[in-house]
Each structure stands twice: as structure tokens, then as C-alpha cells.
């Protein structure tokens, strides 16, 4: 009799075990691209382009690392539009692929100090200082985001300080890589001490 009970129990346990094994588990959640975090991360990497220094014996230290960090989230075929990076240029500058973008980032890092771009915040009633990041799921996949920025930086050569308002447009692929970005800045204004 005990033998019968044991065999029934074994049967029940094996059935319930196999049911548990075949039950449909919820699919792992897809990583969610948070527009505000993405925007803040991009701006942080841009600001970090100023985080290198010249040693006492004149060596440039850390510039490759900050440029690498800026390049890290970019797709190899990234397409970029930035403002003129040179006083002898007129019109938007298209950068095609990571080679040109790296060249731009390197020049940006070497030409500017105290780089401080930040997402413009907006205050409305009880909402304090909300970073206004707009987003859209792209029809071909991925996410597009945009946000207003305020740029505050000094020119390395003469330490003159400038502020500009502008906007950033970023397009992320489904793999989270930046496929396009556009940095738009209005005419710069020099910051003078009172």
C-alpha cells in the first residue's frame, strides 16, 4: 500500500514539475531608452571633452580618453551636423562617419575649456526645473530625442567666455547607438564681467 502511495506521489510530482517547466515565462523586458537619461548622458560626454590637462612638462594628458568616451555611443556610420568650428567657415558642417566626428570632437576638446552645456530646464507651477526632453519612436525603429540646451564655455586660446542657446537632436538605433545627431547653436554672445 505504501508503495502505491509513493508511486502516486512520484507521478503527481513529475506531472506538476513538467507543467512548471513548460509554463510560458514572461519574456525578458526590453531595455527601455529613457529620453531624459539619454539626453543627459550625451551632454555629460560633451562636457567631459574639457576634462583633460597639460602636464608641467607640456604633455597633453587624457585627451584621447575623453574623445573615446564621446565616441563610444556613436554608430560607425553616424551622420552629424554641427555649427562651424572655425572662424574661417560659414554654414553648417556635415560630418560623415566616426573618423570625421572624432576629428571634430578632438578639435572641440582642444579649442575650448570650462565646457558646460546643460539641458535647459523649465519651471511651471509645482513642477520645478524639469528638463524638457522631447521624444518620438522612429518609424524605422529606435528613438529620436531633442532638447534645448544652453552652452557656456571659454575659448582655450584667449579664455574669452561665451554663452549660446541651442538645441540638440539625437537619433538612437534599436541597439542604443547614436545614428545621427545635430547640434544647433545660435550666434554666440561673449560673457563679460560686470
Amino acid at each position, binding site marked *: 500500500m505504501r508503495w502505491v502511495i509513493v508511486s502516486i506521489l512520484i507521478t503527481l510530482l513529475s506531472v506538476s514539475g513538467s507543467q512548471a517547466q513548460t509554463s510560458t515565462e514572461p519574456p525578458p523586458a526590453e531595455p527601455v531608452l529613457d529620453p531624459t537619461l539619454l539626453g543627459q548622458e550625451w551632454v555629460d560626454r560633451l562636457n567631459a571633452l574639457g576634462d583633460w590637462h597639460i602636464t608641467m612638462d607640456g604633455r597633453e594628458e587624457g585627451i584621447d580618453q575623453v574623445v573615446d568616451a564621446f565616441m563610444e555611443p556613436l554608430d560607425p556610420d553616424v551622420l552629424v551636423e554641427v555649427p562651424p568650428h572655425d572662424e574661417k567657415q560659414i*554654414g553648417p558642417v556635415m560630418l560623415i562617419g566616426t573618423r570625421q566626428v572624432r576629428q571634430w570632437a578632438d578639435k572641440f576638446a582642444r579649442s575650448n575649456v570650462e565646457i558646460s552645456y546643460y539641458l535647459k530646464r523649465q519651471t511651471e507651477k509645482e513642477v520645478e526645473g524639469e528638463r524638457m526632453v522631447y521624444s518620438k519612436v522612429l518609424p524605422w525603429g529606435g528613438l529620436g530625442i531633442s532638447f534645448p540646451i544652453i552652452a557656456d564655455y571659454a575659448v582655450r586660446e584667449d579664455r574669452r567666455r561665451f554663452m549660446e542657446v541651442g538645441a540638440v537632436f539625437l537619433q538612437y538605433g534599436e541597439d542604443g547607438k547614436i545614428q545621427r545627431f545635430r547640434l544647433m547653436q545660435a550666434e554666440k554672445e561673449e560673457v563679460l564681467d560686470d
Partner: protein
Amino acid sequence: MNRLIVFAILCSVCAALPIAAQTGAPEGMVQIPAGEFWMGRAHAIDNDADDNLPRVWRDDRPANLVYLDAFYIDQYEVGNADYARFLEATGAQAPWHWPEGEIAEGQERQAVSNVNWFEADAYCQAAGKRLPTEAEWEKGVRGGRDREIYAWDGGVVADEYRPTFEAGGPAAVSLNKAAAVGSYPPNGYGLYDMIGNVIEWTNDWYDRGYYAFMPKTNPQGPDDGLYKSTRGGGWAEGRGSKLANYYRNFSDPDLRGSTIGFRCAQ
């Protein structure tokens, strides 16, 4: 007294010499003075109204303030008769459209076409010259009119088949082929047919992103590439935008086209 007379005679002779001779320009060439100019499109355009392609919109920007040393450039495009002399001297291959390898009757002064980049380069080398860089060509076409769309007053009336030109520009003729060199009015540097006759080979490789980081002094183009830059809207252009000073195009260097010719620089 005698010295005074000799001096006066010398002054008269000098004044009578053509400007080209005074600047020491080789025969048939014009000296373009050293200095800066804005290379590329320095203004916005209405993309839709002008029916510009995205590539056109991007490869001519940003404009860059570029310095060039003085250089010489041919006053005219190379004509069939010039090219025939080169063929005679070198035994090179005649353009395929020449009947039995000879210039068609009455076409001696027509701008040569159907020559590939290598043949154009060989011609210039044989003459002790070279093809102009893209920057030299653009400075040349502007004729001193910096940051302008066209090298003449007025604009372009685009036609379905070929452009016509407002007063001061190349004549409004419908040849449907290359014209004789010197058919259209010269620009401010005295260069003929930079626009409106044949498209011209330049020495530079083509890179649509070149202007983003181009050298600001005597740019020589990218180190390598697949295509060579061609400049200057030709007789077959259907859009006014292709006749602009800053318009860039490119072609396989092996290609021989009925719309592409050249001139040399030094």
C-alpha cells in the same frame, strides 16, 4: 638726354605690352593673384525651389576662407585642334567620337570632350602644366566676385533641357553640344567658358565631406578617392544650381563623357 629718350621708349613699350606679358603669364594663360577667397557656398538656398539633391546641399558646405598662392590657368578650355596636336606628338588615343580619329569638319575650335582624367592629365603634363586643383578652379571661376552665386550679373533661367543665361552670362544658345572655346563672355579674370560649355576635370580626388576640415592654405584635395572632382556646369545641365560657382560634381577618372573637357593650370 639720350638716357631720357631710351627711358621714354622703354616706358612706351612696357605700357603697350599686354597685361599677361607684364605679369609674366605663359602664352594663353592668365595669372590669378595670390590671396584669400571664400570657397564653397556661403549662403542658404531654398532647397525645394531649387530642386537640389541632398548631396549637392551638403558637399558645398561649409564655405571656407582659403588662401591660394598666385597661379596661372588657361584662358580657354582645351580645344580639339590643341588636343589633335597632342595626339600627333604622343600617339595617344583620339576621342571616340572623332570620325576615323580626325576632328570633324568645322569642329577645330570646339572644346575637346570624351577624354578621361588620365588623358587630360597627360595633356597638361606634356605641356609643362597640370590640371587645376578644385580650389584654383573655384577661385578662377569667381573672377574676383567673392561669395556670389554666379560669375556674372543676373542669374540663370533653368530650362527643361538646358539653361539659358541672363544678360552678361554665357549666350543663350541651344547647341546641344560643346561650343567653340571662347564662345561665352570672359569673367572678371578674363577666363572664358568656365561655366556653360564643358564640365572640367580638376586634379583633386572627390570627397563630399572634404570641406569640413579642408586645409585653409593651398588645399590639394583628399589624398585618395574613387572619383575625381569635376567643376563647372556644362552645356547639358538642366538646373541652374549646377551652374553656380560653388557647385561640385565628380566622375570616375576612367570615364570619357561628351560633357566633360578640361583646361590646365601652372
